[in-house]
């Protein structure tokens, strides 16, 4: 059953990604990108990493996708215009693809047998975050607070 689920989710994710890359209208592409996010979250669920899957939905669909569509809405006036084929995009895409393939082929873990991992509960993640990883967590918190205050200052200057 897991194999069937894997194939279905993979087709959904890849279709979303393909649509995001090829669709003419930018807004459609952004929305199909959100479908890809759902597919990736489904993969996490399939692997038993519920927490990561939920955070994926929460952050990427609730925040990142909304941010993307709003950015398109507020910045591009000529969304519908066809810009022709983008060769620099091809170069970047091929470079990223090549880099990823190289990284996957070089990695050792492909040949290793998967070790037995105990089920990763939310409680366990919370405990580890609050004990071993408390300093990285605080640093990220500080960074995000700084970003929030920075955004506020940007808006405040506009008001004057």
């Amino acid at each position, binding site marked *: 059953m897991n194999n069937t689920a894997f194939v279905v989710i993979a087709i959904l994710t890849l279709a979303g990604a393909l649509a995001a890359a090829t669709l003419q209208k930018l807004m*459609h592409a952004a929305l199909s990108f959100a479908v890809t996010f759902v597919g990736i979250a489904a993969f996490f669920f399939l692997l038993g990493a*519920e927490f990561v899957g*939920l955070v994926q*939905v929460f952050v990427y669909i609730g925040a990142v996708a*909304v941010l993307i569509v*709003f950015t398109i809405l507020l910045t591009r006036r000529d969304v519908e215009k066809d810009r022709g084929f983008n060769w620099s995009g091809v170069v970047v895409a091929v470079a990223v693809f090549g880099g990823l393939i190289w990284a996957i082929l070089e990695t050792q873990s492909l040949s290793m047998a998967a070790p037995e991992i105990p089920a990763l509960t939310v*409680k366990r993640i919370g405990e580890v975050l609050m004990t071993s990883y408390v300093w990285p967590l605080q640093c990220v918190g500080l960074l995000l607070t700084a970003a929030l205050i920075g955004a506020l200052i940007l808006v405040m200057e506009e008001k004057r």
Partner: protein
Amino acid sequence: MSESIDQIFVSGKQWLLSWLTGAPSWVIQIASSLINIFALLAVFLTLFALMSVLERKILGRIQNRYGPNRVGPFGLFQPIADGIKMLIKEDIVPARADKIVHFLAPVLIAATAILALGIIPYGRNMTPFTIDGGILFFFAVGSTTELAVFMAGWGSNNKFSMLGAMRAIAQMISYELPLIITVLPVVMVVGSLTPESIVAAQNGYAFDFVPRWFVFTPWGVAAFILFFVSGLVESNRTPFDVPEGESEIVAGHMTEYSGFKYATFFMAEYIGMFAITGLAATLFLGGWHAPARALEFVPSYVWFFAKLNALLFVYVWLRGTLPRTRVDQIMNFAWKFMLPMAFTCVIAAAVWHYAGRGWRGWLCSFAVIAVVYFTLSILLDTRRKFAPRTYRFAE
């Protein structure tokens, strides 16, 4: 006897599944999920139909008129008539609309609203889907509503729709913060994100008399009120219904929807309301626990739905009582009052925990909340003198 009535739905499901003994496990798994889904849909769509007529009845009562009373006894068949009307209405799609996005928006919004219902424990052993991070799932699914609202606004290709969607998303994002942060104290005190263990933690009675619901602690009552108000905003209901303010922007993101698609939006709004009140009952009002030991013979799901309906009544009551707030008032309220108070609830819950969870903790956390509340009310007081209101008419 009361035990078997309490578990009647659970044993009913077991009986249905007993037909499938011998089938492969994945068939049983799918059948079990399907039974849960059908039960959820049946219960909540009936509740939606009842709620839509009861709301109009109660509003009528508040406004000193009868409300619907023509169709069936006491007008109870009104939703059937409304449903038929909505089904046979023409489905109008604007010529310049983005057809696919326009069509998908109501589908997505209804699907996410129904998904959120899946994790709430409706009675003893009656959680449709048990997920380790159930509370997180609720909010993760809820956050996709914003995208659906945006799709409705953008796909309609109408200024009013877009404005309504922008307003809706602005207030949803702003109130998602207090909504989630007020859940944190409960999660902290229980030490789990699973709704069942949150309900289980509210079992028993203090002094053999007061139920151990979180709403009876100072941080609990503060968090409950904040959660309730944020939930009111999230479900776009009066007094926070600026996204669909009829007098300003027609019907917000639903302007270009007619017939059954409009009904789907309407349904999603109500289902979202049920989900958020159900979660409020689970988190703060003890879920399916009875309010007194003498009343424990009443089945658990009766208590859950009694609490749910009591909260829904408050929703309708507020709608009948309060006028619509302005957009800037809603935003100021969120960032200047709700958010600091939500953080205070977290701190107060920590104080309650470390002061021993007894009367000492009760007093200490009460003091924390009272101090912050009064400080905020002094700081936020604009000292504006309200002059007598003057009305100017066209001359």
